[in-house]
């Protein structure tokens, strides 16, 4: 499988560590990896080309934050650019002052239009609207049955007059029907190829007949390079208002989202994440960005690190680590920093490969434990915090008593401290690949 982009970038960007600006050399090496990563995620190659040019411009000479490695810094820039390109998370639909509001769904065969019609209806119903479904696909066998079955499941009326009627008439009459029986008309159309002039012409006629307030293109998240061609043709013919991205419950990286956004300039409004009618959500550009980059929540961790970590403190910490002077006071500081970023377990969970990382096994701390650890460290004398080696049996008893914990807890903490120290040394000496905890490494 695909290595997290950070790992790959780390591999090509060894030259610079911690401080300074990104050099042209660094950036060039990074761009190749980014290009490959995006292509592997199915972003269209032309979109990739443009995107990489933008990132390059932003990255050249950018200041590397002290809490990040250059590789992380580049990923941060890539992520920001991705989120920016993916646009706002505006999933609002246009509603007409004169109901019914008309929503027209279109797209290639099998992309998920009919299912999406029902999902939208269900969502709108929850918002207090009265949607009506209109069965205007007369070509696919049992398409009308399918919409009727789904409509019945969610108790929404379906306007269906059979497969012998012109879809344009069905759509027009369906909207009239919706005026009497609801306030939103959702038109399901047959899947069609963007190069099928006849059917694209029909779609235009449907659009002209019902004057939709929202034309939504339904796109399968597994689509590859061709997504741009299809999206562009649909845009040219019926002028889209937004996109619905389906089948995101799989493991496709969904680069089509970026491609489609780039060629249509229209927002992705909803995502569909399963076959059940509740599997429907508004679009989150940031989640989509990290998905395309294949990096889980690493990006949000990088973002958080950027906000939360005091850079000067981090630099001092690094210096201490190098001198192996890591004390319980530092440990406490680390805990505080980490807490600013969110719960410890969630942070550990964000790190790629952590569950399998041997060195971290014994350091895993649950959030309730942090409180106890704090209490124990507070019960230590300054000398004990700075030179944990002096903590003998009687001191352990005292610390346990003072913090309301047991001797086992104190023993555990000392053990964790030693493990942590070992691990941090491993990090700082660069033996461990992967993500570097902010402030804990150089």
């Amino acid at each position, binding site marked *: 499988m695909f290595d997290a982009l950070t790992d790959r970038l780390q591999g090509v960007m060894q030259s610079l560590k911690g401080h300074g600006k990104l050099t042209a050399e660094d950036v060039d090496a990074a761009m190749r990896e980014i290009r*490959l990563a995006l*292509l*592997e*995620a*199915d972003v*269209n*190659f032309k979109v990739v080309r443009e995107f990489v040019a933008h990132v390059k411009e932003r990255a050249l000479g950018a200041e590397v934050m002290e809490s990040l490695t250059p590789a992380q810094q580049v990923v941060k820039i890539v992520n920001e650019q991705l989120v920016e390109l993916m646009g706002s998370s505006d999933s609002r639909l246009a509603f007409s002052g004169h109901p019914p509001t008309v929503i027209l769904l279109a797209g*290639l*065969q*099998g*992309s*998920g239009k009919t299912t999406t019609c029902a999902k939208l209806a269900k969502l709108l119903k929850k918002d207090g609207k009265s949607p009506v479904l209109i069965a205007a696909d007369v*070509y*696919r*066998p*049992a*398409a009308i*049955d*399918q919409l*009727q*079955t*789904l409509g019945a*499941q969610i108790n929404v009326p379906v306007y269906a007059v059979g497969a012998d009627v012109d879809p344009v008439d069905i759509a027009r009459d369906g909207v009239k029907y919706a005026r009497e029986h609801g306030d939103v008309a959702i038109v399901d159309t047959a899947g069609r*190829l*963007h*190069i099928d002039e006849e059917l694209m012409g029909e779609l235009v006629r449907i659009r002209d007949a019902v004057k939709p307030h929202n034309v939504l293109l339904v796109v*399968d998240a*597994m*689509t*590859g*390079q*061709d*997504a*741009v*061609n*299809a999206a*562009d043709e649909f845009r040219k013919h019926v002028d889209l208002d937004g996109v619905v991205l389906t*089948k995101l*419950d*799989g*493991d*496709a*990286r969904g*680069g*089509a989202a970026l491609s489609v956004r780039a060629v249509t300039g229209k927002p992705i409004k909803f995502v569909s994440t399963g*076959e059940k009618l509740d599997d429907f959500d508004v679009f989150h550009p940031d989640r989509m960005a990290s998905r395309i980059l294949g990096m889980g929540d690493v990006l949000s961790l990088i973002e958080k690190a950027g906000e939360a970590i005091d850079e000067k403190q981090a630099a001092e910490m690094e210096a201490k680590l190098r001198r192996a002077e890591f004390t319980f006071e530092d440990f406490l500081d680390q805990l505080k920093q980490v807490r600013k970023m969110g719960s410890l377990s969630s942070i550990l969970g964000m790190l790629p490969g952590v569950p399998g990382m041997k060195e971290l096994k014994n350091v895993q701390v649950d959030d309730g434990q942090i409180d106890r650890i704090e209490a124990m460290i507070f019960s230590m004398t300054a000398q004990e915090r700075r030179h944990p080696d002096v903590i003998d049996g009687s001191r352990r008893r005292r610390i346990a008593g003072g913090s309301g914990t047991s001797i086992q807890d104190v023993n555990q903490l000392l053990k964790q401290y030693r493990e942590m120290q070992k691990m941090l040394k491993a990090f700082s000496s660069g033996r461990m690949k992967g993500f570097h905890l902010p402030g804990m490494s150089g």
Partner: protein
Amino acid sequence: MEWHEVFKGVAVGDVPAAVFEEEERERRGLFGRLRRNLGKARAVVADQLKAALYVGVDRRLYEQVEELLIAADVGVDGTIKVVDELERRCTAKKIESREPFMHELADVIAGVLRPEDPETQRIDVTARPTVILMVGVNGTGKTTTIGKIAWRLKEMGKTPLVVAGDTFRAAAVEQLDVWAKRVDCEIVKQAKGGDPAAVVYDGVAAARSRGADVVLIDTAGRLHTQVNLMRELEKVRRVIEKQLPGAPHETLLVIDATTGQNGLRQAQEFKQAVDVSGVVLTKLDGTAKGGIVVAIHETLGIPIKLIGIGEQLEDLRPFEPDVFARAIFGSDDESA
């Protein structure tokens, strides 16, 4: 390639002359059709490539080939492999002009797609009944392809029977029912919501008792990441295996030509779960090239057997590596 070459167990004598004539028409038509359907964007790239080819073979040309392969969803790894091999051959053969370069390019791609043993690309329907199981992610064209195969077999004198193994999706049974009527073949179905393994059991039993030649089993679309649904599919396969030794004789994975790099994951997972014996590449009538099958064949060794080029009964064709390779470049030059 003719249909009796695709289906092993159909004698040439069984095939009415009309089928041959139609095949000849299609053969000529298909390429034109794929060509016509080239997207404008793709056509532009292809034209650029052609223009560049007059100048000779240089770095820029290889880059354009790379671009074209990427645009066809061949993927980064597959593209690198193809281009490396192309370069190796062109250097060895001292190829410096257009014609032989194009020829070599198509040949490299076709080479990747040609199974070592051509027999493995055929569909063996000699067993009575032959059981064909259709699997794949949602919306790729499983049900439609069943209709097309059933019709084709019927045209060649076989008696197909279809089984509505998708008991989940709204109106999936009704959809297959329409196809069965169009083909005029029998269908075995149960009420919606039932156990697919039970319907499939009934279907195979019915085929044996009624003397059907080929049983085509439809299954619900499922993403390869859905563990429970993949288990359900494994169970369906086990039920068939137990009931009829040697069956299923074919397990066909249906891949949508618009699919990007995820197609490889799909093939990996379905292969592991139900031992896929072939791929059907659908929706090649659009502008998508279906290049992911290059990666699927190259990494998993699964032969590509059929292609779908439309929504009608007759829109099914044998997969031909050479034709496919040329179509990736949108070239109508048969010699290329």
